[in-house]
């Protein structure tokens, strides 16, 4: 697996491959915690302004402008405030945060302390998915090092500012990547999402003002403070600032985590040159899911010769979304009915059960897929599934419902042939018997 920057100096990947880069010693030797000193000499307003100027958009999938999110935290609240790192990386196709936490845990800590200073918070939690236990252990060691060095604790770097940081384990639930479900889970409850508003910035953890950001979002903050918001933004585009980590998997020669400047041109070059092209030279590109399983699937015709730029706007223009940047590449051996069935099973399993459209809808969709895969496809099934999707999309309590509907809607639209075969002559498009 490759881990490298293309088209830019490595920023988020700066310490990947640096020996002992995860230790405080090497982190400090390579410029770490320098920008924290700078940040602590700035006012909270100045920091928030730099983050706004940077055009940093949340790296967890939704792409909400981070500076704006921070500015929603009420300044005059008498309640304690919390900074929470969302390390519940569970989006199929996304695996970038793993490597950030493994190789650069102090960058997560530094970004979170800065957020604490900017927002007037003295406590942070890193909510990590339970399966990533080895990363929790790495973070615990890093936190201990930082505490012993006076970087965390009652007086951060000798300043009159206290910040404590704790790790917290999840226990296997995709829904806990949704920020309000994460907070329910962090309070010891089932991971059910909460009604918004109030947004977590106003009433989050323990009904106190809370900021929840993705791992990569936090590790971007020290970079922004170090080089200045405008300069960081200009690495990317005006609306999508900075650089972004892409996880790429599936049928390419060099899968891995790549750091690209926002606005990288273009997706075809990325897949066929940077990632080495198709895994098997004699197989053609069939489909790409560019941003993690929850975004619209693209067919080869939407990519080849289309100059798709890799940023939020470019992917929307191409008919999909950036999401978490978890790109899954499929060659012509993949049957899109089968791949969509696989993802729908995922959403059914991960639906928290709180609201009816998502709980019942995903269950019915899997039942229909099962019937189709066992040879019982009917011509009207495509429309039936679209009708069910229509009853989930926009009608569920949280975005998981939308995320379940979009892959099906786009798959039926972009790959009608793959469905038609199953619904009429009942053979898979790749000519093999159904094995899903």
């Amino acid at each position: 697996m490759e881990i490298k920057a293309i088209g830019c100096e490595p920023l988020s990947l700066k310490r990947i491959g640096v020996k002992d880069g995860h230790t405080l010693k090497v982190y400090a030797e390579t410029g770490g915690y320098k920008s924290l000193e700078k940040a602590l000499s700035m006012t909270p307003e100045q920091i928030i302004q730099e983050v706004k100027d940077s055009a940093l958009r949340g790296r967890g999938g939704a792409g909400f402008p981070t500076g704006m999110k921070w500015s929603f935290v009420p300044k005059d609240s008498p309640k304690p405030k919390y900074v929470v790192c969302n390390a519940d990386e569970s989006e199929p196709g996304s695996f970038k945060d793993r490597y950030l936490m493994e190789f650069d845990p102090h960058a997560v800590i530094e970004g979170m302390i800065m957020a604490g200073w900017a927002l007037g918070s003295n406590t942070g939690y890193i909510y990590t998915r339970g399966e990533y236990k080895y990363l929790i252990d790495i973070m615990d060691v890093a936190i201990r090092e930082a505490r012993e060095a006076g970087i965390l604790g009652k007086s951060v770097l000798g300043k009159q500012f206290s910040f404590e940081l704790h790790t917290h384990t999840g226990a296997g639930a995709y829904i806990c990547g949704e920020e309000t479900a994460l907070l329910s889970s962090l309070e010891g409850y089932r991971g059910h999402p909460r009604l918004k508003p109030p947004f977590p910035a106003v009433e989050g953890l323990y009904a106190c003002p809370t900021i929840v950001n993705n791992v990569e979002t936090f590790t971007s903050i020290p970079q922004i403070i170090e080089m200045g918001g405008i300069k960081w933004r200009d690495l990317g585009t005006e609306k999508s600032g900075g650089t972004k980590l892409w996880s790429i998997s599936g049928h390419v020669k060099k899968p891995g985590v790549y750091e690209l400047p926002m606005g990288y041109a273009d997706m075809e070059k990325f897949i066929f040159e940077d990632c080495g092209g198709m895994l098997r030279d004699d197989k053609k590109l069939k489909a790409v899911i560019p941003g993690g399983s929850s975004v619209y699937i693209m067919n080869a015709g939407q990519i080849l010769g289309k100059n798709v730029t890799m940023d939020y706007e470019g992917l929307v223009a191409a008919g999909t979304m950036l999401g978490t940047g978890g790109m899954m590449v499929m060659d012509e051996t993949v049957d899109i009915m089968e791949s969509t069935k696989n993802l729908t099973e995922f959403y059914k399993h991960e639906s928290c059960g709180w609201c009816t459209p998502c709980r019942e809808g995903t269950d019915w969709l899997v039942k229909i897929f099962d019937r189709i895969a066992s040879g019982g496809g009917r011509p009207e099934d495509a429309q039936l599934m679209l009708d069910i999707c229509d009853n989930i999309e926009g009608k569920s309590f949280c975005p998981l419902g939308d995320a379940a509907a979009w892959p099906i809607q786009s798959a039926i639209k972009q790959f009608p042939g793959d469905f038609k075969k199953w619904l009429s002559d009942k053979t898979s498009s790749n000519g093999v018997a159904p094995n899903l």
Partner: protein
Amino acid sequence: MAAHTATSFTDKVLVSDEVAEFSPAIIDEMKMHVAKYPADRTRSALIPLLMLVQRERGWIDNPGVNFLAKFLSLEVTDVWETATFYSMFNLRQVGRHHIQICKTLSCRIMGEPDITEHICSKLGIHPGETTEDRKFTVTMVECLGSCGTAPMMQIGFDYHEDLTVEKVDKILTDCK
């Protein structure tokens, strides 16, 4: 063949008032977790403590749950409410080596079906079952964030990536 028939946790709830016991070292570890949260918010420690109970007892059983309810001043049903939501909590006993094979898309298209078939035929069980000697349980799980190194499986907490049939054979042989 699968020999072990799981006891459902609800049966256990009805029949057992037994409370699990833990060594002082484990209690200290639990207190360390509780101390991370505000004094009036100790329920926050529930999931980390359920993880500890599972590590010590192998699964989430009724005595373990009764202990946590007492330890955190919760109702027994509060603990079950949370425990039954999360897929990592084993509500039935599993083998010493819990093989969790990722079945989500990137692993699925990169060879997971062959890996699953190989493991299951080698162990003589289906996904969801435990071997007669209680050594292995095979579970199919959703994405574990290892798509770039697919196919993959997790045994206990250890990631095994870029799997091939040969690699799987060696990993299984190394499981004592």
